[in-house]
C-alpha cells in the first residue's frame, strides 16, 4: 500500500492545471533540447567562420536562419551554445546556492545557541569579502574554468538565502507541530529535512527562481570582464554584450540572444511561481 499522492505527485497534479507554469516548463525543456541537439545537426560550428556570409541578417533562403556575426559565425548555433552555457551555469549555481543556503540556515536556526552564532558570524564575514577581487584570486589560483564560475557565484549568493531561511526557521521552530514532532522522538536531521524544509519550500523556490536569472546575468558580467567564458566559446550574456556594441547597424546580433535570454528568465519566473503554489498543500 502506498499513498496515492505524496507531496510531489500532488504538486505535479496541481502544476499541470497551471497553464502559464506548464507552458514555461515546456518552453524551457524545448530550449534545453534545442541547445543540446541542434548544434550537432547544424553544418556550422560555434567557432568556424563562413567567409562567404559575413555579418548577414536573418534570412530564410540560405542555411544561416538567424544570420551570422562579423566573423561569419552562425548566430543560431552560437546562441544555442550560449543557452547551454547559461542554463548550465544558472541551474548548477542556483542548486549549489539553494542547497548550501537552506542547510546552513535551517541548522543555524534550529540548533540555535552557539552553533547559530558561529554560523551566522561566518556568513557576516563572507559578506564582507569583495566579490571581484575574490574571483580574480580564484582565477589566479585555479586558472579559468567553468567550474570556477559556479564556485565563485555559488560562494557568494548562498549567503542571502541562508539568512532568509534562518529567519523563517526561527519563526517555525516555536510552532507547535515542531514541538509535537520532538515529542514523537524525531531527531535533529529528520526534523530539519522532513519537517522544516517542506515548510520553507515556498520561499526557497521563489528565491531559487530569482537566483537563476541573476546568476545568468552575473556570468555575462564576469565574461565581459574576461573572467568567465572565453571566446570563441560563448554564453547568452557575452552574446548580448557583443551584440549591444553593434545594435545600431545590426540589431539582430542583439535581438536574437536577448530574446532567448528574456524567454529563459521569464519562463523560470513563471515556473517558479507555479511550483510555489503547487507545493503548498493548502492551495488547491
Amino acid at each position, binding site marked *: *500500500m*502506498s*499513498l*496515492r*499522492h*505524496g*507531496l510531489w505527485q500532488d504538486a505535479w497534479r496541481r502544476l499541470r492545471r497551471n497553464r502559464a507554469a506548464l507552458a514555461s516548463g515546456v518552453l524551457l525543456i524545448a530550449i534545453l533540447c534545442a541547445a543540446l541537439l541542434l548544434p550537432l545537426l547544424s553544418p556550422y560550428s560555434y567557432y568556424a567562420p563562413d567567409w562567404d556570409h559575413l555579418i548577414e541578417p536573418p534570412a530564410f533562403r540560405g542555411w544561416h536562419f538567424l544570420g551570422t556575426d562579423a566573423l561569419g559565425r552562425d548566430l543560431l548555433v552560437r546562441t544555442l551554445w550560449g543557452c547551454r552555457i547559461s542554463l548550465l551555469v544558472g541551474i548548477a549555481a542556483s542548486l549549489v546556492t539553494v542547497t548550501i543556503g537552506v542547510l546552513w540556515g535551517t541548522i543555524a536556526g534550529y540548533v*540555535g*545557541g552557539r552553533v547559530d552564532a558561529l554560523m551566522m558570524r561566518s556568513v557576516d564575514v563572507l559578506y564582507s569579502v569583495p566579490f571581484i577581487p575574490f574571483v580574480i584570486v580564484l582565477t589566479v589560483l585555479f586558472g579559468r574554468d567553468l567550474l570556477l564560475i559556479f564556485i565563485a557565484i555559488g560562494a557568494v549568493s548562498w549567503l542571502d538565502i541562508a539568512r532568509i531561511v534562518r529567519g523563517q526557521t526561527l519563526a517555525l521552530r516555536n*510552532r*507547535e*507541530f515542531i*514541538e*509535537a*514532532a*520532538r*515529542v*514523537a*522522538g*524525531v*531527531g*535533529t536531521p*529528520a526534523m530539519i529535512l*522532513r*519537517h522544516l524544509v*517542506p*515548510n520553507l*519550500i515556498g520561499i526557497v523556490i521563489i528565491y531559487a527562481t530569482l537566483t537563476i536569472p541573476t546568476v545568468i546575468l552575473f556570468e555575462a558580467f564576469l565574461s565581459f570582464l574576461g573572467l568567465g567564458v572565453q571566446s570563441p566559446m560563448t554564453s547568452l550574456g557575452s552574446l548580448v554584450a557583443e551584440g549591444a556594441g553593434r545594435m545600431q547597424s545590426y540589431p539582430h546580433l542583439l535581438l536574437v540572444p536577448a530574446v532567448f535570454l528574456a524567454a529563459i528568465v521569464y519562463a523560470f519566473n513563471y515556473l517558479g511561481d507555479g511550483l510555489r503554489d503547487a507545493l*503548498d*498543500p*493548502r492551495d488547491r
Partner: protein
Amino acid sequence: MSNTATDTAPLLETRALRVTYGTPAGPVSVVREVDLAIRRSEFLGIVGESGSGKSQLLLALLGLSAPGARLTGSIRYAGTELIGAGDAALNRIRGDRIAMIFQDPMTALNPYLSVGVQISEVLELHRGLARAAALRRAAELLDAVQISDARRRLAQYPHELSGGMRQRVMIAMALACEPEILLADEPTTALDVTVQAQILALLRELRARTGTAVVLVTHDLGIVAELADRIAVMYAGRFVEEAPAETLFAASHHPYTEALKRSIPRIDAPLPERMASIPGNPPNPAELPPGCAFAPRCGFSEARCLGAVPLLRALGPQHRSACWRDAHE
C-alpha cells in the same frame, strides 16, 4: 482497579522535581518539589489554573523544557534517570514509551505533510517499519480512533480535516507505538463542547482497551471528575492536594481545592446571582510569598501560613494535602 494499580511500582516517578528558568530578574521556578508517580494503566488528572505550571511539568517529564531551563530533583522512568539524559536516549522514549497530545490540534500537525506520512513517521522511527507497512498500520490506527474511510484520510492534509478529526489524528499518532504513558495537555480546550465529549470518551475507551496510563492536564475540574482515577491539584508550581477522584470530591481538604469545586456551576442548583470565583489573582511565579502561595487568597489564612510553605501531608490512603490547617500535631 485502583487496588491493583497501587500495588505495582510506578512507571514514571519524579522526586522533588523543580524547573527553574533564569530571567533578567533572577531565577524563577515554575515547577516546585513535585513528587509524581504514574502507575500502569491509571488515569491521572492534573488540575490547575493557567500559569500553575502544569504544562511545564509535562514538558519537563519529556526533557522538552525551553532552552535555559534548569531541572533539579529526579525523573525516573523504568529505572533510568531522565534528567540529564541525552537527546538520543530521550528520543527512544519520546513517542515510543511516552507519547503526548497537545492543546491545539490546529497547529500541532505539520501543514505540509499528509496525515499518513505523519503517522507512519512515528512507526518508521521507533518500530523500524517500512513505509508500506507503516501506512497499513496507520490506517488501522485511524480506524481505532474512529475516523471513517481511513485509507482515503491518509492521503489528506491537516487543513482538510476538522478540529475534532485532527485531534483524533494526534491521538492515533500518539498511540502508534502503544506507549505506556499518554500525556494529554488540555486536549479538548480548543474544541467544541460536543467534540470535547467525543474526544474524552475516546480517551477513556482507548485507556480501557490498551491499558495505557493517561495523564490529563486541564483547568476544568469537571473533565477530570468524570475520567480520572486520581487527581492532583496544582497551584503555583506545587501539588497542593492529591487524592483519588471520589475522595477529592467527597472530602477535599485544601482550601484551594474547595474553592475550585465551589466555582463549578451546578446544573441542579438555582443559578446564583454571580458565579462563584476565587478572590485575587493567580500568583506570579517570580514573586511568590515566602509562605503558602495560596495564603493571600485564602479565607483561612493565619500567621503561620505567611511564614513557611506547608508540605504535603498524608491524610489517608493516597490522600495528601499541603495546608497548615491539617498540621494539627
